[in-house]
């Protein structure tokens, strides 16, 4: 039975987890490695670590953190945040990450996807796409939704697949942070456009929201969320038990 994936996303700044975390049995909530291990125990299917460090120093810390994570967890993980070159991606994959997630750099230079595919294979490349709906068109954005590009979501998704991405992580900037559910209809449409797996991100507020995007309504392959997991609003084992009751295939 092929399972839908549940993916907690951790924001990392200067080697530390930034979002407040509500794990009662954790000694150091700022320690990404300890948090990652906890998520593994709770049957997270994959983890995503996004580096939001603004400094060169912070970036270096991230590479050594990735090495430490790779030593300590036994499930696949993706790293992203500010990857702009083959060298950036290569350093992170060599440090032990299973996949890299690229975003702004890909919109500026789609060739980067092709180069990474040649070097590391599609399975190690996730392209993250942020978009918002403007006058009825889904426009690709960068810099946390503040910069709107000329690209249109669906044609960009198709191009990303052609270039050799292994997976698309689509975040609706209109839904992100609202906790009112994922952009289900957009995910459903993406299913018609691309054949590679699509990870849903942005808008999770409840178990029902996650069930919706993974079921017929959204048809996404995986659901990513940050705050609802970090703040303990939804525990992954509870979530998975509920999804199973709704006949959504999950790893338990």
């Amino acid at each position, binding site marked *: *039975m092929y399972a839908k994936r549940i993916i907690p996303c951790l924001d990392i700044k200067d080697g530390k987890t930034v979002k407040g975390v509500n794990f009662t049995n954790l000694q150091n909530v700022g320690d990404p490695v300890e948090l990652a291990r906890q998520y593994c125990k709770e049957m997270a299917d994959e983890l995503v670590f996004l580096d939001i460090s603004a400094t060169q120093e912070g970036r270096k810390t991230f590479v050594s953190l990735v090495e430490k994570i790779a030593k300590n967890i*036994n*499930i*696949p993980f993706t790293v992203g945040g500010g990857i702009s070159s083959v060298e950036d991606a290569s350093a992170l994959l060599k440090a032990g990450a299973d996949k890299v997630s690229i975003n702004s750099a890909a919109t500026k230079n789609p060739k980067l996807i092709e180069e990474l595919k040649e070097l590391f*294979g599609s399975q190690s490349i996730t392209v993250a796409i942020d978009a918002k709906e403007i006058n009825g068109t889904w426009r690709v954005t960068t810099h946390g939704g503040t910069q709107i590009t000329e690209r249109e979501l669906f044609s960009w998704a198709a191009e990303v697949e052609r270039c050799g991405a*292994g*997976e698309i992580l689509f975040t609706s900037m209109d839904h992100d942070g609202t906790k009112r559910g994922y952009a289900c209809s957009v995910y459903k449409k993406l299913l018609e456009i691309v*054949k590679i797996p699509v990870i849903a991100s942005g808008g999770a507020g409840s178990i029902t929201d996650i069930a919706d995007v993974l079921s017929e309504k959204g048809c996404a392959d995986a659901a990513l969320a940050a705050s609802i997991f970090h703040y303990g609003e939804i525990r992954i084992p509870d979530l998975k038990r509920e999804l199973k009751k709704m006949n959504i295939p999950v*790893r338990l």
Partner: protein
Amino acid sequence: MIGIIDYGTGNIKSVGNALARLGAEYIVTSQASIIEGCDRVILPGVGSAGMAMENLKRSRLDKIIPALTQPVLGICLGMQLLCAHSEEDDTECLGIFKNRVQKFPEIGKKIPHIGWNTIGSLKGSLYTNVKQESFVYFVHSYFAETNQMTIATSEYGIRFSASLNEKNFFGCQFHPEKSGDIGEKILHNFLSNNII
């Protein structure tokens, strides 16, 4: 000592990390004399069959590996290389497992098969204390057909060999090093004294 065969393909590190978590000592090497002296040998693999076989031939590992008598585990592409032939680049492989490796047919499933899937029909010492229908992590576009050497199966549109065994040779199509506690259990079984 466990030898991880280095033949120029990616992500060998995660196998080493998994062995370290189990407290096992390992060495990453392409040297025949070292490989032959190891208690266990792992043939990992990410990449394409054609290039991987070329690399093995260049270092004469295509002759060394089939002659090994200690337990050998091929992981993912490593397992496919232990099979007879791969459709990928129309490659003659090492021929220890008699299976042929084929591309997943286009039947409405996303390819590659990436993610968690269950394994069943588990047989033998590699799966001691592993429950039927356990979830493991797969990443592949080609699969080995099932035959009498199959010791675990999985289904993704079609039924295929998730694991193979012939004498001292074992193969896992999935990545035990990325398959959570179940994967660790399987690696632990491979390291245990009564594996063969």
